[in-house]
């Protein structure tokens, strides 16, 4: 049985787990709620900041690709002006 697929008012990526690349140190992964003028709206997202403590980006991405990310940010808007790319996590 197919369920709530009727979200025509939302962006095509609605409900899809995406990687949002930015022009800065931040790389976001989360479930895309929508893409609007203000930016990419993510739910249950996590972020990797280059240069901060924690695993290197490649290692963080590999773990995310295998198992997903912890929902450290329930709702976040990545500003459109900062976004340089949006890809499905499954395609990484």
């Amino acid at each position: 049985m197919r369920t709530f697929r009727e979200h025509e008012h939302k962006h095509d990526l609605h409900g899809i787990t995406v990687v949002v690349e930015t022009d800065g140190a931040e790389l976001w992964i989360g479930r895309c709620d929508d893409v609007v003028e203000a930016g990419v709206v993510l739910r249950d997202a996590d972020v990797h900041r280059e240069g901060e403590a924690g695993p290197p980006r490649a290692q963080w991405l590999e773990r995310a690709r295998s198992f997903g990310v912890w929902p450290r940010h329930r709702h976040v808007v990545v500003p459109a002006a900062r976004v340089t790319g949006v890809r499905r996590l499954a395609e990484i």
Partner: protein
Amino acid sequence: MPYSPLLIRPMREELLAVGFEELSTAADVDRFLADTNGTALVVVNSVCGCAAGMARPGVRLALREGPRPDRLGTVFAGQDLEATARARAAFGDIPPSSPSMALFKGGELVWFLPRHRIERRDALDVAADLGAAFAEHCAVRA
């Protein structure tokens, strides 16, 4: 806020109809996972049409033939809150996602399929992933 039980009943039935045990309480999950003999599949069901709409048919397809887990259990994310939390605790250091699927062998988690590897795929693809996991970890049915 949990969904209406009436709304999700058909989504539960899709799995119960092929032999899944409904794990609606934390105690159900504890009892189910306490049996460490053989293999057990736990499906975290979900209302999400972006992924669950293909997850359930994929599971059904995968169970039609070939090796399969000895036991099948399911919790429903957003509905059976304590049971879902308990199941996710058993998944160890794997972030929560729904729908998702976990295969245990001898009480150890040996395979996991998170939500993002179900999204946008069709039932045949999901069934193929499950079938490969069953072939690797589960005994052939007599």
